[in-house]
C-alpha cells in the first residue's frame, strides 16, 4: 500500500483516471491554440519587440542610455538580474528538494516551475550581458584558454563565481527539466495524429519506448540530477549574495546575506510559480491537478520564507547599530528615511507585512487573494534588490560623491525585454509542451486521488494498461515504499 494517511486530502481531485490525466494534459498540446492564448502570446511578443529595441539600443549606443552615474554603478540591471535569478529558485526547489523530501504534491507543479526556472535564468543572463560595458567581450569572464600569455580570470572576484554558479544552474536545470519531459513527449508522440507532430515529438522524445529499462534509467538520472540540483538551490543565490556581501559598501557588506538571499529567492520564486499556476490552472482547466491544496501549501512556503526575510531585515538593522560603524548605521537609516524611503517601505510592506496574511487559512485558500499577494511579493522582492543596490550605493563613504539614480526609458525597456522574453517562452512552453508531468501525476492518482476504487472500475481496458505502466513508474520511483496494491 502506498503510505498515504487517509486523513490527508487527495492530491488530484475529480476522480481522475490515468487516461483522464493523459487526456487532460495533452489536450492543450494537441488542440489548436485558443484565442486567449493568441492574445496573451501577442502581448508577450509586443513586449519582447519593444524590449528588443531598447536592448539593442543599449548595446549599440552604450549603457549610458541608462540612468546610472559615477556613484551608482549598478541599479536596474543588477536588480533585475538578482530578481530573475531569485525567481528561478522555486523550480529547482520544487523539483529537487521537495522530491528528496517526498512532497508528492509537487508533482503537479514541478514541470511548469522548472520551465519557469529556466526562462527566469535566461532573463537573468540577459542582464549579465547587458550590464557589461563591452558585452562582446563577455567570454573573457570565462576561464578559457587564450593567447594573452598567462592571462586568466580573477578567481577572487564574486562575479567569476557568479559565472560558474549561473551557468551550472542553467545547465543542470535545463537537463533536469528535459529529462523529465521525455516520457511525456513520448506520450504525445504516441497519441499524435499528424505526421509532423509525430516526427517532431518523436525527435524530442529521444526514442523513448516506455520499457522497463527506459524507466529504470530515467529514474536513476532523475535521482542523480535531483541530488545535483539540491545544493544548487542553496549555492546559486548564496553566490549571488556574495557579489554584495564580499564588497565593502555599507549596506552590502553583510554576513547575513547568503541565507537571507536564499530565503528571499525561494520567497519570490514561489510567488512567481503561484502567479503562473493560478493562471495556467484556470486557462487550461487543470483545477483538478493543481488543487487548492497546492495553493495552500505554496502560500505556507511563501509565508515562512517571507518571515525569514523579514527577520533578516530586522537583523541587518540590529547589526548596523551593534557594529558601531557610522557608515553602516547611516546606510540603514538612509534606507528608511533617506530619499529612497519609498522604495524601502514598499519593500517592507510587500515582503514582510503582506505574507503574514497567510496565517489565515481562508486567505491562504482564496485564489484571488493568493494571486494578488503573489504579485505583491514579487514587487516587494524587486524593491528589496533595488533598495540593497541603489540605496546603499547612492550614499556611501564620501558625501562629496553622493548622488541619486533615476531610471530612463531604456532601464525600463530592458526590464520589459525580460518580461517579453519570459512570457513568450512560457506561452510557447504552455502551448507545445505538457505543463504538468503526466508520468509523475499518474503515479499519485492511485493513492492520492479521490476514490480510487471508483476510478479503477470505470477505467477502460486500454487505460488499465496505461495505469499498469504508471504503477511501474511509481514502484521504481519510490523504491523504498511498499509497492502499490
Amino acid at each position, binding site marked *: 500500500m502506498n503510505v498515504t494517511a487517509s486523513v490527508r486530502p487527495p492530491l488530484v481531485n475529480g476522480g481522475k483516471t490515468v487516461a483522464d490525466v493523459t487526456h487532460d494534459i495533452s489536450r492543450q498540446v494537441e488542440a489548436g491554440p485558443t484565442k486567449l492564448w493568441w492574445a496573451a502570446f501577442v502581448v508577450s511578443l509586443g513586449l519582447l519587440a519593444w524590449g528588443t529595441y531598447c536592448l539593442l539600443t543599449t548595446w549599440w549606443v552604450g549603457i549610458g542610455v541608462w540612468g546610472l552615474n559615477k556613484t551608482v554603478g549598478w541599479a536596474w540591471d543588477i536588480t533585475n538580474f538578482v530578481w530573475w535569478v531569485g525567481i528561478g529558485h522555486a523550480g529547482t526547489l520544487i523539483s529537487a528538494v521537495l522530491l528528496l523530501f517526498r512532497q508528492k504534491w509537487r508533482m503537479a507543479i514541478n514541470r511548469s516551475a522548472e520551465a519557469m526556472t529556466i526562462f527566469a535564468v535566461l532573463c537573468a543572463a540577459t542582464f549579465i550581458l547587458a550590464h557589461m560595458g*563591452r558585452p562582446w567581450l563577455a567570454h573573457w569572464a570565462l576561464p578559457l584558454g587564450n593567447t594573452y600569455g598567462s*592571462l586568466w580570470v580573477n578567481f577572487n572576484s564574486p562575479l567569476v563565481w557568479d559565472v560558474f554558479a549561473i551557468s551550472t544552474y542553467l545547465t543542470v536545470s535545463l537537463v533536469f527539466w528535459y529529462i523529465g519531459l521525455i516520457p511525456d513527449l513520448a506520450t504525445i508522440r504516441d497519441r499524435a495524429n499528424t505526421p509532423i507532430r509525430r516526427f517532431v515529438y518523436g525527435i524530442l522524445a529521444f526514442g523513448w519506448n516506455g520499457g522497463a529499462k527506459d524507466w529504470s534509467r530515467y529514474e536513476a538520472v532523475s535521482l542523480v540530477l535531483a541530488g545535483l540540483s539540491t545544493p544548487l538551490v542553496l549555492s546559486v543565490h548564496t553566490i549571488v549574495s556574495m557579489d554584495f556581501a564580499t564588497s*565593502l*559598501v555599507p549596506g552590502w557588506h553583510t554576513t547575513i546575506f547568503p541565507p537571507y538571499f536564499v530565503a528571499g529567492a525561494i520567497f519570490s520564486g514561489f510567488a512567481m510559480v503561484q502567479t503562473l499556476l493560478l493562471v495556467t490552472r484556470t486557462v487550461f482547466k487543470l483545477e483538478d491537478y493543481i488543487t487548492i491544496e497546492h495553493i495552500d501549501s505554496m502560500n505556507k512556503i511563501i509565508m515562512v520564507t517571507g518571515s525569514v526575510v523579514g527577520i533578516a531585515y530586522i537583523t541587518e538593522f540590529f547589526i548596523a547599530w551593534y557594529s558601531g560603524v557610522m557608515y553602516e548605521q*547611516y546606510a540603514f537609516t538612509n534606507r528608511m528615511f533617506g530619499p529612497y524611503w519609498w522604495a524601502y517601505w514598499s519593500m517592507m510592506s510587500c515582503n514582510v507585512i503582506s505574507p503574514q496574511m497567510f496565517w489565515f487559512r481562508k486567505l491562504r485558500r482564496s485564489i484571488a487573494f493568493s494571486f494578488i499577494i503573489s504579485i505583491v511579493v514579487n514587487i516587494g522582492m524587486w524593491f528589496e534588490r533595488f533598495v540593497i543596490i541603489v540605496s546603499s550605493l547612492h550614499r556611501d563613504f564620501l558625501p562629496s560623491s553622493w548622488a541619486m539614480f533615476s531610471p530612463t526609458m531604456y532601464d525600463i525597456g530592458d526590464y520589459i525585454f525580460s518580461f517579453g522574453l519570459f512570457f513568450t517562452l512560457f506561452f510557447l512552453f504552455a502551448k507545445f509542451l505538457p505543463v504538468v508531468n503526466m508520468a509523475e501525476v499518474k503515479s499519485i492518482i492511485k493513492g492520492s486521488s479521490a476514490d480510487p476504487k471508483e476510478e479503477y472500475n470505470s477505467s477502460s481496458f486500454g487505460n488499465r494498461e496505461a495505469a499498469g505502466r504508471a504503477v511501474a513508474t511509481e514502484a521504481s520511483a519510490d523504491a523504498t515504499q511498499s509497492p502499490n496494491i
Partner: protein
Amino acid sequence: MSQDTIYWRSFEELTNHPEFIKDSLREFNIPSPTELEQAQAPDRRDFLKKVGFGLSAAALASCEAPVRKVIPFLANPDNVDYSNANWYASSYMLDGEYCAILVKTKAGRPIKIEGNKLSSVTRGGTSVRVQASVLGLYDNSRYVKPQIDKKNATWQQVDEALAAAVKTGKRTVLVTPSMPSPSFEALVARMQAAIPGFEHVVYDALPASGIIKANKESFGQAVVPSYDFSKANTVVSFDADFLGTWLSPVEFSRAWARTRKLGPNNKRISKLFVVEPLMSLTGANADQRIMAKGSALGSHVAALYNAVMARTGGSARAVVAGVDQKAIDKMADDLVANRGRSVVVAGSNDPAQQTLVNGINFALGNYGTTINLNTPVRTKQGTEEGIAGVLAGLENGSIGTVLFYNTDPVYTHPQGAALKAALKNATGVSLDSAPTDTADACKIVAAAHHYLESWNDFEPKTGFFSLQQPAISPLFETRQAEDTLLKLAGVGETYYDFVRATWRSRVFPQQTEYKGFNQFWNYALHDGIFEVGRPSLRGKDFAPNGTGDADERYEYLSLSGTAPAAFAGNVGSAMSAVTGQAAGQGLELVLYPLMGMMAGVQGNNPMLLEFPDPISRVTWENYVTLAPTKAVELGVSLAEGRTSLVKLKVGGKELTMPAIVQPGQEKNTIGLAVGYGRTVVGEAGKGVGQNAFPFVNLSGGFQSYVVSGVSVENTKEEYMLGHVQTSHTNAGRPVIQEATLAEYQKNPTAGREFPMITTPDGKMKPTDLSLWKTEVNKRPNHAWGMVIDLNSCIGCGACVVGCNVENNVAVVGKQEVVNRREMHWLRIDRYYSSTKTREENATNEELETAAENPRVTFQPMMCQQCNNAPCETVCPVLATTHSTEGLNQMTYNRCIGTRYCANNCPYKVRRFNWFSYPQNKENFPTNPANDPLTRMVLNPDVTVRARGVMEKCTFCIQRIQDGKLTAKKDGRRPVDGEIVTACAQACPTEAIIFGDMNDPNSRVQLAIKEQYSERAFRVLEEYNTRPNVSYLTKIRNA
C-alpha cells in the same frame, strides 16, 4: 579440413587482387617512418630549381628597387625624436593674468603647459586658465584666414584696407588689455610716430583702476603695487579674492601658501581675515570670515581704519555704524601686533576704499615689506576713461579706425551694446585669433596667432622680464597681431626682430653677466625669463618635469621696496564716501568673476567650461547665488542639481537664470558671475550661461560690481544644473580631519581620528588586521606615494585641469554632468562645516546642512592607490591590478565594464565610459578627441579610452615610465622630483607632493616621516585599504 574450403580474409585476397599481392609482400601495411621521410624529402632537381629561383629573384630585386624617402628631413634636426617631448619656455599673458610657463611639445605639437619654476613671479605655479589655455590653440572656431566684411581675404588685401583706413584723417585707436610688454610699448610708440592721430587705449575687463587712482593720490604713483603675501603674518582681505581671481592669483597663492605650511619645526601659520559678501575662494580659505554686504565693505574698511589708527596713535575718524566692531577690533589687534608683517587688501574698484586701505597699510608700516610700490604690477593698467573715450569718439564720429587686440569690449563692457552700434561709424579692426562679439562687429579681422604661435615679451612687474616664443609654426593663415601692427606702422621688420631689438636696447644693458647679446638672448629664451639683479641660473639643472621644493632649489628674486615717505590720501573725503555707501538697504547684486572663466576670454574652452567652480561645484554656466535664508524666502531649493529659474531685475534690465543656494553668503546679497553668455563664440561656449556685464555699475566713473536696486523673483520653472557635488558637508565624517592652530600647538595630532577595531583580542589598529599576506605589499623597487597638505591646498583646481589635459580626460558636456557622469579623475571635494557637529548629537539632517557662515575644507581626491585595493579583488577579468611599485593599474584593453570596481571603491574615484566619448562628434561635440583639429591636443602617451571601460588616475603612470626609462638610459636611479604627476606639477601652492617612498630622502618620504606621527592621515583608515595617498590635517588659525 577439406582442400576445397578456402579461408579468406578479404575479398581482395579471395579474388587475388593485384593490390593485395603487392601489399602482401610488406610486413606492415603502413609506410615506415623512414619510408615517409624519403617520400617527402625534396629531390635534387627541386632543390636546384629553388636555389636558382631564389638567386635570380634576389639579383632582380637588387637591380631597380625604387628609393623611397621615408624621412622627410634631409638632415634630421637635433633633438627631434618624436617619442620625446620638447619643452619651450614661454609666457602666458591673457586677460590680465601673467604666468611663466613651459610648453611641452610632442611630435611638434604643444600638448601641455606647465609652470616655469625659474620665475620669481609665479614660481612654477599655474592656474586653471593657464593649464587649459593649450586647448585654445586647437580651437576649431579660430579664424583660419583674415577676413574683410566676413569674407575670407588675403593678407595683402587686409594690409591695403588697413593702410587706407588709418589715412582718413580721423583718429585711429588701438584698444588692448594691459600689455606689460616692453616691445609692445615700443611698437605703440612707433605707431604713434607713424600714424597721425594714433592713440593706444588700455581697457581691462576687470580693472584695478581704483587702486591706481588711490595710489596716485596717496603716494603720487599711479600704479598697482606688488604684494608679497609670503612675508605677511596677518592678511586682511576686503573682498579681494587674491587666491582666486584678483590681480595675480598664481603668484599670491604660492606666496600665501608658504605661510600655511606646518611641520615639527614650524608651528606657526599666518592668519587670514576675509570680509566679503559672497563666498570666494579666498573667503573659503579664511581663518576668520565676516559676511558683509557689498555696499557695507567700505564701512568695514573705515572701521578697521579707525581701529588701526586708535592702536597706532593716528587720528581716528567718525565712528562707523553697521559693522561688527568686535571682529574689527580683533583684526586690528592682530594687524598691529604684526606691523610690517601684514597686508590689508581690498578688491573694490572704489578709490575711496583703496585710499583707506592704503592708509591702514601705511600706518602698519607694510610698505617696503609686504607691499612694494617700486616693482608695481603692470598687468592691470586699464582705466575706465580710456574705453569711455573710445565709445564717445565712435559715437561722435571723430574716430575713423579702431583696432581691438585680444579684447572684447562689446561683450565685457557694460555699454557693449552701444559700442557695437557705434562701431558702424568707423572701421573696426579685430586682431583676435578667434571670433568674439567685438570681432564680429568689426569690418576687418586681421586673424592673429594664438599665443603659442607668437613671439612676445612681458614685464609683469618692473624688472621681471619674460619671453614668449612660439612652440609650433602657425596652424592657419594667420599673422601675429604685432606683425600686422608693425606693417601698419611701416616698420619693415618682423616682430621677432623687433622683440630682439627691444631686448638689445632695453634689457641687455640691465645685466653684466653676458657680454654678447646673442648669448644673453639665448640664455633668456632658454630660461624664458630674465630678472634684473638676480644671480645667474647657469649651471642649475633644468628638468622640465622637475619639482622638488622649488623654493628650496631656486633662489628667487625678492625685491624689498622702499616705503613711501608720506601718505597723502584724503582720508576725510574717503571716509565720507565709503560710509555714505552704507545707506544701501534692501537687496544688492554683487558681480564677480569665476575661477575658470574670469572675463570670458577663454569662453570657448570646453575644459574650462566643464571645470567645476571650486565653491559652487557647478559647471557649464553661470547662475544666481542666493544665501540660504533668501532661498527659503524665495522658495528656491537646490537638490541634486535641480533648481528653479529666477528672474533678476536691475533697473530696466532683467535676466532669467538658474539659482543656487550658497552658504556663507550675506543674506541680502545676490551673486552673479560675469564671463558667461558670449554670443559670438565657438561651439563649446555657445548658449553657455548669460552675460552679466551689462549690470556692472559705471555710475561713479569706476566700474563697480556692487549694484543696488535689485529685485529677484522665483519663476518656479524647473532647471537642471551640471552640479558635480550635491552634498555639501562632510556629514560629521572624519574624511577630512581638522583642528585649530592652538589645538595643534598643544598636540600635533589634534583633529586626527585613530580608528580602532574591536576584536576578541582587544582593540587593534586596522592595519594590524588583514586578510592578506604581508608579502603581497612588498615594494622592492619603487613605492610611489603622495602627500596632500589640506592646509596649503586652496582648492583652486589647477591640478584638476592639469590632470584633464595630461590624461586626455574626456569633456562630456553639460547633459552628462547633469547625469552625474563627469569624467574627472581628480576632483576637489569641497566640504562646508555643518550646523551642528556629531559630538553635539546632531541628526543626520543637521550634519548634512551647511552652517550659515561655514568653515570650508578642500580635499583633492583621486585614486588613492590602495595597497589593499577593494577594486582589484572584485574585477572578474583582472583588468585592474596592483603593480610592484604600489600603483593600482588599470588595463583598459582587458576591461569588460562590469563597474563592480567603481561600486566597491570607497573613494568613488573611478570613472566609466558610458558612451563612446571619442569618435562621437554628434553627441559629444565639445570633447577634444572628436575633431581632427582639437584632437591634436591629446597626449600621445595616454590611451584615449573606448566605450564601456573603466578609467581612473594611475599617478600619471606614463610620466613614471618616462622618468624611469630616462634614468635607466643614464644608468642611474630616478632622482626625487624628476618624476612628478600632472597634479603635483600644476599645483601653485605645492600642496601635492609626489615621489618614491622607498627613497629615504624623497620629499614625500620625509613628509610622511615627519608628519606621520602628527598630521598625516589616510582617508577611511578603518577599512585598511592602505592608500598610498596621505593627507595632512587642516589647521585653522582661528
